């Protein structure tokens, strides 16, 4: 572990500096994202026919595919991110304070990607506002899709508020070291700030965190997102109560993986090994292992109930799933990660950060594949599986694959931009770290006192 002491300077460093690598990454991501925007424009011009989708039934295809799979994946990452950050605040898991804000930002970025997917997936996105909002009071009673849009919007607002509130504290205190270029942004963000509000904000944030933690299983990734599928009796691959917990655990594995990757990237880029310590990564990895275990446990439940003596249609769907190479790959990736994580807890020398990154990437790939096959399998093996002369077939088209790269590019861009404007590590985290590690260093102590004053 580093002997350096975390300072304000550390968290300010990303702002205002532009390294070559930064520019290269920015350009690369912009290109990928731009390429997808072009592809999307083509899709808008030609229609959804450019995808590999078709109608299920005599259309011989899958109605939804990668767009929806990736949508759930991003929402999962997003929801998990905010849950992580809320848990840090609520349960006082101070150890993860340095990555809490990154997790919140990941939520905003992930929700943006998911929202984008909703639009990309629609046949007539131009009617989004008139058709959905215009009938909202009626459809909100029974359309799971409307519930989804509602809850995603609510979460976005909640997270943005949460982030904005905590940023006021930091920006006010660090204002002198922030570039004047963004003065208007800072002004707006700290509008009407007084020190008395700190305590109130602290309390508000606590309540917000509580709301998020409660809403997550009841409404969010344990609720409306799985209900899109779980409430439909026509698709045995989806129907059932297990989808709620299953979706939530997948969300949490994805999100922890996402946070590991983002945190590692920042740590490397800005030499933050004294802020995002190895200890943080070890801890995150352990949590990842725990959720991987839950993930696999719920998969096991589905396989056992779906294969032992299930109704014909459920049996057909589950048999097809368990034998599917994509599904097997997903399970192997998650299982492998789990095995590694357990091994490194028993033998700490097995832990290295690159391995942690590999584990995180493996899980993210696994969850994406699982979501993809989950969505598609529903259409390939419906309850009314009579259409054997036009059996369901689907493979994502080039444009659909590109959407994946495009949204990843979009999320990276989000971080690249945001990191240049506001601190991505909370000032509180630095203060806290110094409280732990900075004893005996008078000067540092003095600054801390000043800040607190």
């Amino acid at each position, binding site marked *: 572990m580093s002997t350096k002491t975390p300072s304000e300077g550390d968290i300010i460093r990303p702002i205002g500096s532009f390294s070559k690598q930064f520019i290269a990454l920015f350009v690369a991501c912009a290109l990928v994202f731009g390429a997808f925007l072009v592809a999307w424009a083509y899709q808008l011009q*030609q229609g959804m026919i450019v995808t590999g989708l*078709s109608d299920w039934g005599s*259309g011989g295809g899958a109605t939804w595919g990668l767009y929806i799979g990736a949508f759930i994946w991003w929402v999962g990452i997003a929801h998990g991110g905010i849950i992580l950050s809320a848990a840090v605040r609520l349960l006082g898991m101070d150890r993860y304070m340095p990555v809490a804000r990154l997790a919140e930002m990941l939520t905003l970025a992930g929700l943006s990607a998911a929202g984008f997917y909703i639009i990309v997936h629609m*046949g007539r996105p131009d009617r989004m506002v008139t058709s959905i909002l215009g009938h909202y009071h009626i459809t909100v009673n029974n359309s*799971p899709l409307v519930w989804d849009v509602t809850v995603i919007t609510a979460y976005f607002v909640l997270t943005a508020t949460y982030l904005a509130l905590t940023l006021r504290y930091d920006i006010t205190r660090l204002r002198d070291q922030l570039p004047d270029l963004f003065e208007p942004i800072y002004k707006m963000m700290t509008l009407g700030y007084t020190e008395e509000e700190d305590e109130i904000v602290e309390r508000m944030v606590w309540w917000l965190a509580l709301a998020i933690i409660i809403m997550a299983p009841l409404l969010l990734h344990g609720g409306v997102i799985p209900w899109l599928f779980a409430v439909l009796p026509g698709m045995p691959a989806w129907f059932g109560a297990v989808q709620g917990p299953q979706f939530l655990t997948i969300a949490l594995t994805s999100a922890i993986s996402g946070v590991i990757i983002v945190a590692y990237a920042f740590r490397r880029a800005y030499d933050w090994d004294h802020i995002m310590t190895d200890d943080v990564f070890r801890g995150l990895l352990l949590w990842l292992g725990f959720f991987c275990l839950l993930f696999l446990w719920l998969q096991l439940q589905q396989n056992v109930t779906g294969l032992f003596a299930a109704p014909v249609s459920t049996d057909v769907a589950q048999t097809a799933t368990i034998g599917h190479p994509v599904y097997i790959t997903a399970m192997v990736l998650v299982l492998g990660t789990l095995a590694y994580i357990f091994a490194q807890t028993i033998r700490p020398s097995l832990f290295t950060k690159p391995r942690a990154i590999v584990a995180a990437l493996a899980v993210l790939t696994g969850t994406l594949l699982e979501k993809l096959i989950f969505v598609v399998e529903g259409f390939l093996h419906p309850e009314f599986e009579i259409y054997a002369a036009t059996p369901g077939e689907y*493979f994502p088209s080039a444009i659909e694959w590109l959407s994946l790269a495009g949204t990843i590019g979009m999320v990276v861009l989000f971080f690249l931009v945001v990191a240049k404007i506001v601190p991505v590590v909370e000032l509180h985290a630095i203060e806290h770290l110094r409280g732990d590690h900075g004893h005996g260093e008078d000067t540092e102590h003095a600054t801390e006192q000043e800040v607190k004053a």
Partner: protein
Amino acid sequence: MSTDDESFHPLGNEWENELEEMLDDTEYDSDLGMEMAQDAMRVTKGELSEAEFHEMYHDDVMEEFGEDQRPTEAAYEEAQAAEEGTMSRMLSKFEGDGEEGRRDAMKKMGAGAAFVGLGAWGTVDDGEPEPQEQVAAAQEDDGGDGTQWGMTIDLERCDGCLTCVTACGNENNLDQGVNWMYVLEFEDSTPQTGRPNRLVRPCQHCTDAPCEKVCPTTARHTRDQDGLVLTDYDVCIGCRYCQVACPYGVNYFQWDEPDISTDQIEEYYTEEQGMDSDHMTTTYENGEERWVDSRAPRGTMSKCTMCPTRQDGEMGEDMVGTTACEQACPPGAIQFGDVNSDTSDASKYATNPSRGRALQWLSPPSESALEEDLDGADDDLESVLEAAGLDVEDLMLMKAVGITGESMGEGDGDMAATETDIQAALDVIEAHGLDLDDEDILDELGLGDGDADDAQVVLDQQYGSPESSFLLQEDMGTNPNITYFGHEPGPNAEQTEPTGTGVEYADLSYERADGEMVDMVDNRKEVLDEETVGDAGVSL
């Protein structure tokens, strides 16, 4: 919902008395119950608002039961959501003689009201039917309110010629592979009957349509006026959730620009066919004009519509109560009509399928021709048959149809017309002097005593009674409005090819409004794959 007696309840005095008795048997206040039930009926009649009703009884109910969770609230709300409208709009349906209300809403309201009078007093003496059952019975009984278009499809009569599929494509100008009507042949794990199993699969126009329920925009809706489940092409955002939620796979998304423009369709129907309607927009009974018919525009969802342009009289009065597929079907396997009316083709066929088959098969001589033929002939059976050019069997079947007909000639479907013709022919023969109700004649005709049972046996023997009657995927809870006769596909049923009389989809084509011939395609994906960007040619 009209009753002759003085009862407040639509099911009459008997029901009311029974209800009171049941209430007496419970520990709760039966006067309150009866009072509430009466006012609940006033709510359904629109004399009292739901809010007023709730206001009136909330305290009493709280006192009596310690909680106020009357299921009416839920029922009302559900009905309200389903009706996409306000309470008052819905209740206005129940003014007058109540004939106009949509059946579904009526059922829910009726059930809700019945529950108020009954359901809340859960404890009922043994021996009495469960309240739920009675409510269910009430629901059954109040059929006949408002129109609900639907079909009766006799799968054993289908010979798989796919004429209905082409007729639908032609009428609606569908793109290749958009088989709103679809016919398939299948193998099942049950022993083969020797007859191929076929399924004729239009949209089921479910009363509890899951597609409508999940739609985030109300584009997919059920028409109040006749229960058709339609898509408003101007509202649909193309999320495809309706297709996902439908357990039958009847939806077809418009993945690209349709092959024929709206102008061409309009031109064809208004100019070439001389219709007032463009076969795309139609005017609802409430005055709204909505684009719900013909092929969908790009990016929206389509499916079998059951021809609203026809049902709305925009193709002329004789086309009301018909669909393109029904008219085209050579063996008459499809019967379309108002399933709430006992005298529609669909209902007549459904209540007595072998008789229905007879009505498809028989072509009685016209009244005038028969009179002419019989002129001067003797009035014994043999002479009459000879003069009329009929054989014993023909007469036997005609008479059997007459005997078994409860509402001969009533209704305005084709079957009613055939019934009228048969009755007229039988009347001419009777008028000629041959007493068809004479014991000996009946005997000679092989109709036994001439009662309905004997006649039914004759019809069953001649035309066969179907293997079974079923609703498709009934356990999905969709309440489909298509009744099938024939072999119900089990969970292991698998489509085989080719369909029917050895005819393949690819061998057939239909003409579109622009004069082009469209070759039919069974698997639409083959058409769509041509435009997929970077089609990998593999499948997950």
